[in-house]
């Protein structure tokens, strides 16, 4: 194991883990103050459940044996056969760690769509089940499976992660239904500073997501880093400029949404494009996604925080643009070239096919999972809970306390540390 590679991929894995709390803040700030803790918990729930699922069976089914076309097996289930003493010195284990971070954030992406109304018990089951039935097989097809073998490209998860989660988000909200009062009753972000902080954390973490996906500390990682830097800036800029021209202001939410759209769009091509291409990809993604988030009101699906408009559309745009901008000579690889680099359109076809297959599979299976949950434990909170807030009803917590609280159990900390006035101790 090359120590330089190991060092970079370890750091990258930690960066990708940090994206999930970042995403939670990004979504949580956009949500209403009565539901922010539910949003954070939906994301943190993925951090609690998916790592365990991943080492028990997820990784093995999603990757090994590598020659399988459709699904892996159980060779590495329960981390069997992965040690630090073998030939690779533990690099195999490091790959399990790194990819596990991606497995965590992929279902978390969906939480933004189902905000404000999904029963937490239903989400608690949905996240791991979806990861196993949808994320794992699609990941296998794209990375080493039949879609990848045909020649389609997905450097860090445009198809396998963003298109996959984005279309699943659409399936979820179609089963779940609209929030009461939507779209007549507006739901403006309750804390834009949280949204901006979350955006910063996402961008920071995304350097690990994209540049770490080189799985080495090499030139491809450097180029992926540069692409991540430029595409996010370009997309934030183009989204902000569209809003300035169309609506009259450069808004924080527009800039943040553009940055995320650019990060999503460069993800599939991060290690396949170079030069000015990331700027073009970012500029295009920012404009397209800025208009795509408006589709939901026209089409009538309540994708609360625009998972479809940003992740699905951004991922799809970025993935298809590889068909134009892929430059294999620059990276000295045997990959197919894009139309602007001497390619003949075959790559564009393969990109469309890989995304088309992912869209159909993810949409259908996600719909089945949601319908099964709806028929059993139910997917929606009662009307009164939806109207008065999920934080207190589903989690017994309130995000922002004003005024006083009384400690009522003997284990409660003293007043001096928690702003609580100890009064009647409950026996």
């Amino acid at each position, binding site marked *: 194991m090359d120590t330089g590679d190991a060092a970079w991929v370890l750091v990258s894995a930690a960066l990708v883990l940090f994206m999930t709390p970042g995403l939670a803040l990004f979504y949580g700030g956009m949500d209403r103050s009565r539901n922010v803790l539910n949003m954070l918990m939906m994301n943190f729930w993925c951090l609690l459940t998916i790592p365990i699922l991943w080492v028990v069976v997820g990784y093995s089914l999603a990757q090994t044996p590598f020659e399988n076309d459709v699904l892996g097996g159980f060779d590495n289930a329960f981390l069997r056969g992965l040690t630090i003493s073998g030939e690779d010195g533990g690099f195999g284990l490091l790959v399990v760690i790194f990819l596990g971070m991606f497995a965590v954030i992929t279902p978390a992406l969906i939480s933004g769509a189902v905000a404000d109304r999904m029963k937490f018990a239903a989400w608690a089951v949905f996240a791991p089940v979806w990861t196993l039935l949808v994320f794992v097989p699609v990941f296998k097809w794209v990375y080493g499976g039949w879609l990848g073998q045909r020649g389609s490209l997905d450097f860090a998860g445009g198809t396998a992660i963003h298109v996959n989660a984005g279309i699943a988000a659409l399936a979820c909200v179609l089963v779940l239904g609209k929030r009461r009062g939507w779209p007549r009753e507006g739901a403006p972000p309750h804390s834009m500073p949280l949204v901006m902080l979350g955006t910063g954390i996402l961008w920071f973490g995304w350097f690990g997501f994209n540049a770490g996906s080189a799985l080495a500390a090499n030139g491809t990682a450097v180029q992926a880093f540069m692409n991540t830097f430029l595409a996010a800036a370009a997309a934030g800029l183009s989204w902000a400029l569209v809003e300035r021209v169309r609506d009259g202001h450069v808004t924080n939410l527009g800039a943040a949404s553009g940055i995320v759209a650019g990060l999503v769009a460069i993800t599939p091509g991060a290690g396949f494009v170079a030069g000015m291409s990331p700027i073009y990809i970012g500029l295009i993604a920012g404009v397209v996604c800025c208009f795509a988030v408006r589709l939901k009101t026209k089409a009538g699906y309540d994708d609360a925080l625009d998972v479809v408009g940003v992740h699905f559309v951004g991922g799809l745009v970025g993935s298809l643009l590889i068909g134009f901008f892929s430059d294999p000579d620059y990276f000295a690889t045997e990959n197919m070239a894009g139309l602007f680099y001497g390619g003949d359109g075959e790559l564009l076809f393969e990109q469309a096919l890989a995304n088309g297959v992912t869209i159909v599979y993810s949409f259908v299976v996600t719909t089945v999972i949601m319908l099964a949950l709806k028929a059993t434990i139910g997917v929606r909170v009662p009307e009164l809970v939806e109207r008065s807030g999920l934080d207190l009803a589903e989690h017994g*917590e309130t995000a922002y306390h004003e005024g006083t609280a009384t400690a009522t159990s003997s284990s409660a900390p003293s007043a001096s540390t928690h702003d609580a006035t100890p009064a009647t101790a409950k026996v």
Partner: protein
Amino acid sequence: MKLVTAIVKPFKIDDIKEALKGAGIQGMTTSEVQGFGRQSGHTETYRGAEYTIDFVPKVRLEVLCEVFDAERIAGVIVDAGRTGKIGDGKVWITEVDRVLRVRTGELDGDAI
């Protein structure tokens, strides 16, 4: 003149506002308040320690009106604000001596 004051559930305020606008009321003032009545508070648990939140968030709504309008407005608020569950709040009507519009100095009925 009269002042109609209501304490209601926060998520009902939009329904009440729409109902009042529908009843021809041209202005109102709201404020976020905390308090308790028969509903009393609720409990929350942090790291196993239980806390009673005594003061429940409510919205206070105030509408100035002519004497003849007060009962009608109170009725609209009660109808639109009712969920039937404990904690729906209260409405009361008080006497107002004088009303002035700041911009024009208009008085009483003209200032409403």
